């Protein structure tokens, strides 16, 4: 057989191997990402970076509720209120009551965005969900996809263990307690900026309670304070 046909044969053999390797890699990737809940591209690298947090200042506050878009892994997310939305849990959808609903999600991973009145976005996964006291558990796998398709007007919202807020800056009124009440700041429409908050938050009647650790706090207004 002429030489150029042999070269062509070698090239097409290489291409076949590349194609087959790509196929295997994609197949394995599809299966791993679907069946392993802890899969992450960055893996322990990012976890390692997260653990090197410099948040050391004990921070407790009761302020007005900001607009927030948070995401992460929370041990418990609890909210009450009303909505005409459907609440999607796994493959089921639940019509929420117009008057009062009480929802609890355990081990929630995903996004949650809210302002002083509404939960405007909720999209993630949870291991167990209670809707008005009725538990919903996964059937075939160990996680449930959860989402809301419309705003949920909440009367109370609580996110526990733990929410990470890398930066929060807004004009607020209320009280801040540092290091277990050793320093107390009372704010009246003053600008606060805090960096790297780790802890629990809850919102009720436009009161936003935060309890955890921060790396830095700046208050600008009548009182000008910077703590780090």
């Amino acid at each position, binding site marked *: *057989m*002429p030489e150029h*046909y042999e070269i062509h044969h070698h090239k097409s053999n290489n291409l076949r191997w590349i*194609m*087959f390797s*790509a*196929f295997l890699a*994609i*197949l394995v*990737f*599809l*299966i791993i*990402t*679907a*069946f392993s809940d802890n899969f992450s591209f960055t893996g322990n690298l990012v976890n390692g970076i997260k653990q090197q947090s410099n948040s050391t200042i004990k921070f407790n506050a009761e302020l007005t509720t900001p607009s927030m878009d948070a995401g992460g892994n929370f041990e418990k997310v609890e909210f009450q209120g009303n909505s005409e939305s459907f609440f999607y849990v*796994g*493959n089921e959808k639940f019509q929420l009551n117009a008057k009062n609903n009480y929802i609890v999600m355990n081990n929630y991973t995903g996004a949650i965005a809210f302002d002083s009145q509404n939960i405007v976005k909720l999209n993630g*996964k949870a291991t167990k969900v209670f809707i008005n006291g009725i538990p919903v558990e*996964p*059937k*075939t*796998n160990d*996680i449930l*996809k959860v989402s809301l398709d419309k705003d949920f007007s909440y009367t109370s919202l609580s996110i526990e263990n733990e929410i990470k807020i890398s930066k929060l800056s807004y004009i607020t009124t209320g009280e801040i307690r540092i290091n277990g009440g050793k320093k107390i700041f009372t704010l009246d429409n003053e600008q606060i900026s805090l960096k790297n908050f780790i802890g629990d938050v809850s919102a009720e009647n436009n009161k936003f309670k935060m309890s955890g650790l921060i790396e830095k706090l700046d208050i600008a207004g009548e009182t000008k304070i910077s703590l780090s």
Partner: protein
Amino acid sequence: MSKKDGEDDLLKVRSSRKVYIPVYLMILILLFTIGAIKYMGRELNSFAFRITLIFSVLCMLMTESHRFRNLYEINNSSLIHTKGILFQSTKRTDLLSVSDAEIKQNPWQRMLNYGTVEAAVFSKDSMTVMHDIDKPMEFVVFLEGKMANKRGAGGQQRGGRK
């Protein structure tokens, strides 16, 4: 394999799509896996879904472009091999100069009735290879028919001049 101009005057063939059955199988396995993941209610990673789609589309494009890269044609006077899509090279071999034709098939190709035909021009160093064409036996029979016709016509012409 396609015949044109009514009375078997022209035969045009390209590589058979049967060659790409393993590629089509890979695409099917990936799509089946996605279906199974959805059916089982598992979370489908959007990046994995996207690369599966890109891989499938690329495979389809590559197989089709590979197939369209070679066109083999037999007419009344020559065997023509056109290579390339945008940049083409055409090799014409006069049917009078074709000495013999060889069919090469492995068991898989025999089962699916496709194979490689090598048309030699009195030397193994100068031959036209038609890779992975459908019904290679029919192709060779057609080629031999055309060769016989041309040789008969050539003989008649030479006889007429006498």
